[in-house]
């Protein structure tokens, strides 16, 4: 089953080439085999096997008996949910996230919780309390982040797809670095109930899979209104997979003027190859302008930390999670529990967020950032008058070595999300799909669509994948052992 897509596994199950139990067993075996990648915080062997044994395969349901791994910030009842943080080590929530429930009702069998940057704060999965994750394509190199474990678990072929979350690029950038297709839907498409918040107004769950069609299958099962999340859109679940083969109309792809000259020549060449492919497929390419896009990284690094500084206040050692021992008073309980429980990047962002919301600074930072956010959203609206989708690179480079970026200057790592952050600020859907390799390593490009237009994104990505085979490549992982 290794490296098979959801659709392929569905065929195998339908033709009885494999039973649900065999499929789950193999997935669990692969998880053990590739333990050295450190994809998983927790492997759910017993429950997964029980579920597989009790499952009845439903040929009409594309996700029936399909193994999945969940990012370790989705709450799972009585199963540890840690956000890869010491402060939640051993925490077992008394309830389950809507996304996890939705996929379970669709027939998925969850085999594991995936490693991630602590509280989803990072672009390399290096901030995890449970250790770094190797990129299956290259040892001692990062899988990207924050959904790094999710990306590595799919890239290594342990599961055909995994759930991730994307606050500033946390699905798309690891997808690009691990040769996967990763979708960040429209804000509000997928319920945030039970998804431990990093930045509430930016966080959005989504799938990482081998191709666009698998993303569509997963998306259709993950979406739908949830009365427990007032920011979830009052809309039915998507049905993107039904129309994924519709390439009938000619689309115009906008290429962002302001992004030109930002890439190394090798990365630029890979991106130009993708543009050529689209042109050959009949797409029109048009230069468009997003005048305020240059402010997206600083804007993001005001808004996201502000929200996180407040969202993470509940981790105080009082009701759950890590509580420092031998504290003398309340203030010490807070200071010690949080100092011991949070890692450096999380602390850094809490400090930034606290600062930008403080009296006297709020107007200069937080309020200003919200204004710029509105301008960026307007830029997209204007641009979509001229094109149907926007085409950009996903990340500035390929995977990089452990500890090579951001150790001296953390903002160096923040630039990993240069191309992805704006879609979160505008709340619009975006996907990353594999393209021409650079130095034998995966790279990706991004398609951004107007609000709610996941269907168009997935059709276009699927179209691209009909004509290219980058997404079919798998890492050998030979040099790991």
């Amino acid at each position, binding site marked *: 089953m290794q490296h098979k897509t959801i659709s392929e596994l569905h065929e195998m199950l339908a033709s009885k080439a494999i039973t649900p139990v065999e499929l789950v067993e193999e997935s669990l075996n692969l998880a053990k085999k590739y333990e050295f990648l450190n994809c998983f915080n927790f492997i759910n062997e017993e429950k997964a096997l029980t579920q597989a044994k009790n499952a009845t395969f439903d040929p009409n349901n594309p996700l029936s008996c399909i193994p999945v791994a969940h990012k370790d910030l989705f709450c799972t009842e009585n199963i540890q*949910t840690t956000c890869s943080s010491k402060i939640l080590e051993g925490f077992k929530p008394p309830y389950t996230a809507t996304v996890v429930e939705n996929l379970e009702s669709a027939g998925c069998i969850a085999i594991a919780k995936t490693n991630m940057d602590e509280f989803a704060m990072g672009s390399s999965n290096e901030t995890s309390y449970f250790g770094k994750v190797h990129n299956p394509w290259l040892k001692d190199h990062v899988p990207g982040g924050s959904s790094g474990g999710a990306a590595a678990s799919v890239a290594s072929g342990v599961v055909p797809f995994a759930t991730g979350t994307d606050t500033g690029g946390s699905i798309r950038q690891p997808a690009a670095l691990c040769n996967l297709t990763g979708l960040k839907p429209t804000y509000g498409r997928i319920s945030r109930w039970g998804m431990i918040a990093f930045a509430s107004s930016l966080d959005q769950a989504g799938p990482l899979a081998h191709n666009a069609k698998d993303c569509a299958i997963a998306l259709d099962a993950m979406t739908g209104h949830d009365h427990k*999340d007032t920011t979830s859109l009052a809309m039915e679940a998507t049905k993107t997979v039904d129309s994924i083969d519709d390439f009938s109309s000619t689309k115009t792809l906008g290429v962002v003027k302001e992004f030109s000259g930002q890439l190394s020549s090798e990365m630029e060449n890979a991106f130009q190859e993708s543009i050529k492919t689209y042109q050959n497929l009949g797409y029109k390419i048009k230069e468009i302008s997003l005048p305020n896009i240059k402010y997206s990284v600083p804007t993001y690094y005001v808004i996201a930390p502000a929200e996180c500084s407040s969202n993470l206040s*509940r981790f105080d050692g009082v009701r*759950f999670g890590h509580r420092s021992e031998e504290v003398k008073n309340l203030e010490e309980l807070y200071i010690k529990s949080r100092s011991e429980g949070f890692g450096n990047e999380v602390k850094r962002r809490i400090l930034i967020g606290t600062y930008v919301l403080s009296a006297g600074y709020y107007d200069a930072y937080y309020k200003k950032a919200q204004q710029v956010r509105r301008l960026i959203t307007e830029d997209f609206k204007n641009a979509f008058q001229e094109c149907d989708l926007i085409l950009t690179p996903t990340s500035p480079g390929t995977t990089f070595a452990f500890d090579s970026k951001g150790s001296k200057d953390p903002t160096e790592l923040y630039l990993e999300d240069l191309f992805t952050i704006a879609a979160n600020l505008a709340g619009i859907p975006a996907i990353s799909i594999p393209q021409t390799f650079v130095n034998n390593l995966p790279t990706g490009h991004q398609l951004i669509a107007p609000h709610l237009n996941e269907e168009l994104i997935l059709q276009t990505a699927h179209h691209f994948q009909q004509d290219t085979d980058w997404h079919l490549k798998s890492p050998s992982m030979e040099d790991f052992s």
Partner: protein
Amino acid sequence: MTWEVVIGLETHVQLSTKTKLFSRASTSFGADPNTNVNLVDCGLPGVLPTVNKEAFYKAIRFGLAINATINQTSHFDRKNYFYPDLPKGYQITQMDRPIVEGGQVEIELEGVHKVINVTRAHLEEDAGKSIHDADPINSLIDLNRAGTPLLEIVSEPEISSAKEAVAYMKALHQLITFLDVSDGNMSQGSMRCDANVSIRKKGDKELGTRTEIKNINSFRFIEKAINFEIKRQIKVLESGEKIVQETRLYDANKDETRPMRTKEFANDYRYFPEPDLLPVVINDDEIAEIKNNFPELPNEKKLRYLNELKLSVNDADILSSTKSLSAVFEKLIENGSDSTLAAKWLVGDISALLNKDQVELENSKLTTELIGELLNNISDNTISGKIAKEVLEECYATGESPNSIIKSKGLKQITDTAELESMLKKIVDDNPEQVAQFQAGKDKLFGYFVGQAMKETKGKGNPEIINKILRELLAK
């Protein structure tokens, strides 16, 4: 030196919704610790708030009653601070765009009317409770109250004495109870206020430095706390010192205010818009619905009692002044009691009993049903008014029903004319001297005969029948 007092009040009213502001947990009072608590109230990782519209409807009802502007689109903000009984580390409140803005509350003090302007009224969630004395080592947390909806009503600094402050609070109390916005139960913390107090030389335009007295929860303490604070401030200023802007607590046992430790309030709350909740939009239909079902307010009630029920001004005044009295009164009439009789007993003997023990009607053993039964027995002449007092006292003390008290004590009125006549004849026969004096013109002696008759019947003789027969007998 003449000093002028400037007071502004921030009143927290607990709304009488069944469930909390952002979760579906119950708001019932007095439950075992941490039982009215769900995932949202605990602030567990990954949970999200959802809005209880009922709280908005109640807030809007209050706003409409004071002629305020209703912001049909309002939003929530986060007020960030750490405290163990604040599970999320922030309180969800309305900072920038409250549901209610402006409005006026009319107060009356010794016959003088005055209007106090309201700045705003906003919705927010209450915190839980920290319990410091139940365990020798640890402080304990009870989150039952966490998330209970509060309406914070902020007045303009237009109140100029402690007595006015009390009058304002009483006016608010009347409004929120009549509007069914809150049960108004102050001893359970359903209404409490913070008082901002400052003084200035009479004629000065600028406000003096103010202090804030936190969390006062009775009318009596409001008056005492403010008066203490005024005297303290005068003393400070007259000794040439300056008022320190600070938060103070009123200690009822010592009847004084004293500063809270600075740590308890030295916070930068880092307000920002709550990203987990969309702005709350109230449409025109919802407003119309609220207006159509608007409860009758005290003034309207009073007029109706006067004009339609023909009650006396005094009775109408008293019965329309508190929600509990007017509710019982109206229920009695609805169940068939005579309005004048019901008013007489509620305002008279029943109020006297309650006042004696300082009890509210709803907290006493007297129910509407029991009172109704008593009134029925009076109306149909089963008992006289005098006996009724006895029955009421018994009923008030034990909660036993008037019917059963009348039966077990044999208090039923004697209305048998023949029986009364033979008894009265005997009284007349036994008192020839008094009869002679009466017939000679000493009218007052009539009462003597009535007294004898009542003594004989142990008060159960029907006074009207006795009077009638006596007149006939004595006229001879």
